[in-house]
């Protein structure tokens, strides 16, 4: 009744091409953005901003990065965290070593560095297909992890190998406060998601999906496989690099290679499996789940009589639950939470009718 398309006719292809053809969607999105940009920084408390919203946004971005490569272009990757690390460390080195470089430029260049490294480890995809490709991204994961610890230059020769974030100044405004970091993250994430949406709906997005679905046929109809795959790796790397830089500087405040290990790569893969492969919204849903679930679980546990389940056990339970959830999603809803949301919307379009 409220959420329907009646009366909304597109008369030009350009209207049909819009990201959100339904008027209700456009209004809804505008409202959401208004709340996110204006209301939240005012009313949000520091805990929610720093510990929930910022990691949620950054992980959504990382999820999108991996989704471009794995969900849209069909190239399986377990090296996401390594590319995040490259972005983080590159941004750090640029900030520290190059005087007067604006922060946003450093982050962008950090993303670029990650894009190049990712494209490099993506070269084998021109010869290797499917499951075997894991070897290349795993090699990236381990090699980058090793290189960043081994060569002290990357961490500015600090004794512990841990680096702390420089001040976040944009156009002279200091953003170190939680609200400031939140706004920085939000802006970058929204901008990159807008770009991402255009990308996946463009010719390149179609070429990625063609390569994913049947690359021999794609080649036969003229799609350049090498360029398509390498662009997927590069753009994915860029997104992951920016996410890594934000993770280090807007969220943690410090950076160490250990925080970008194989477990982090798994985490991002879980985000896109739970959220939905080949979906933009799915990244947000998956990231929200990954961020909120541990909080929910430990809150639940603290409600139980004291000492029944100790902190270590909670971690084990969480692990088991995640694993079980992955299997459940793969069986029941391989297209993830995004598909569930889509089905809900479809029901909403017909409401109050049933079908």
């Amino acid at each position, binding site marked *: 009744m409220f959420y329907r398309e009646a009366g909304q006719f597109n008369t030009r292809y350009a209207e049909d091409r819009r990201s959100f053809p339904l008027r209700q969607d456009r209004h809804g999105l505008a409202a959401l953005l208004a709340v996110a940009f204006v209301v939240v920084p005012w009313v949000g408390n520091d805990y929610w901003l720093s510990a929930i919203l910022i990691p949620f946004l950054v992980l959504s971005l990382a999820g999108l990065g991996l989704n471009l490569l794995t969900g849209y272009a069909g190239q*399986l990757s377990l090296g996401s965290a390594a590319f995040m690390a490259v972005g983080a460390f590159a941004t750090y080195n640029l900030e520290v070593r190059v005087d007067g470089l604006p922060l946003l430029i450093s982050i962008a260049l950090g993303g670029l560095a990650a894009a190049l490294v990712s494209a490099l480890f993506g070269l*084998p995809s021109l*010869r*290797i*297909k*499917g*499951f*075997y490709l*894991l*070897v*290349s991204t*795993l*090699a990236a994961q*381990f*090699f980058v*992890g*090793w290189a960043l*610890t*081994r*060569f002290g230059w990357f961490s500015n020769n600090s004794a512990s190998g841990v680096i702390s974030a420089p001040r976040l100044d944009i156009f002279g405004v200091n953003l170190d406060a939680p609200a400031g970091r939140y706004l920085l993250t939000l802006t970058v994430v929204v901008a990159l998601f807008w770009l991402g949406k255009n990308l996946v709906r463009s010719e390149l997005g179609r070429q990625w999906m063609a390569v994913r679905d049947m690359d*021999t*046929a794609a080649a036969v109809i003229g799609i350049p496989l090498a360029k398509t795959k390498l662009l997927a790796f590069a753009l994915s790397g860029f997104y992951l690099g920016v996410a890594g830089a934000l993770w280090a500087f807007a969220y943690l405040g410090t950076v160490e290679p250990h925080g970008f290990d*194989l477990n982090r790569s*798994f985490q991002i*893969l879980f985000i896109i*499996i739970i959220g939905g492969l080949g979906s933009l919204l799915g990244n947000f849903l998956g990231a929200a789940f990954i961020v909120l679930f541990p909080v929910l679980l430990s809150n639940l546990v603290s409600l139980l009589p004291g000492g029944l389940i100790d902190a*270590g*056990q909670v*971690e*084990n*339970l*969480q*692990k*088991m*639950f*995640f*694993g*079980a*959830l*992955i*299997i459940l999603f*793969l*069986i029941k809803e*391989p297209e993830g939470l995004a598909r569930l949301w889509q089905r809900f919307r479809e029901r909403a379009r017909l409401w109050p009718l049933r079908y």
Partner: protein
Amino acid sequence: MEFFFEVLIGGLLAGVMYALVAIGFVLIYKASGVFNFAQGAMVLFSALTFVSLLERGVPFWLAFLISLAAMLLIAVAVERVVLRPLVNRSPITLFMATLGLSYVIEGFAQALWGAQVHGLDLGISDEPLELGGMLLSQFDIFAALTAASLVALLSWLFNKTRLGLALRAVADDPLAALAVGIRLQRVWVVVWTVAGFVGLVAGLLWGARLGVQFSLSLVVLKALPVLIIGGFTSISGAIIGGLIIGASEKLAEVYLGPIIGSGIENWFPYGLALLFLLVRPAGLFGERAIERV
């Protein structure tokens, strides 16, 4: 020169251990077509169960049998809950399911038995043996012999028994196997149990070496390069792949390490596997997939 051979043989013997873990993968891949990422978790769980039982005073062979029984239960559960519902899906989906499975088993193992390191004494002394002017670890030799007997046992199983025939049929074409009346589910349970058994043996050997602890499940990450080089479907390939990875890893550590830096054994096998893939995408012994358009 002798030092070189010492390092080489040490590496080969370490490679035997890798091969042992890889064999578990090959078994499951041959029969279910899935790369079982949870194999490492299975190794951990079986070893943890065994060691915890030992610590509680259970005699050696009883503990072994109980652990084996636990692996059988896991095999049944996995077949029911994971394999059956996902029977027609893509290999990548199955792989991701085993990823989830590894989390479940790891979490369960640690929830049940705790997270501390357990020492494991198998009664083999670690005194080096002198052979032809080289010092070799007795333990390594024992491990190599165990692996060899295990391989002989498995070869007999695959090639000389009816069960082995059924396993090979399922590995080749599950649908055709169904058509001739082979009980797919039973075969899968058997295979996963055998893989669990192999995992248990591997877990005991590894555990005696490194102590039974969480990092045991990470041996799975070493198995992948082994399988790339040896092919996913060949046991002899797993052995040879294991030997190659073990030897090259040790040699690289000793000879390249001082130049490039320590700790390269983490990525060196992967680099090697990658180079290999670029030249021979199906491994040394694996089957080349022919794509019909």
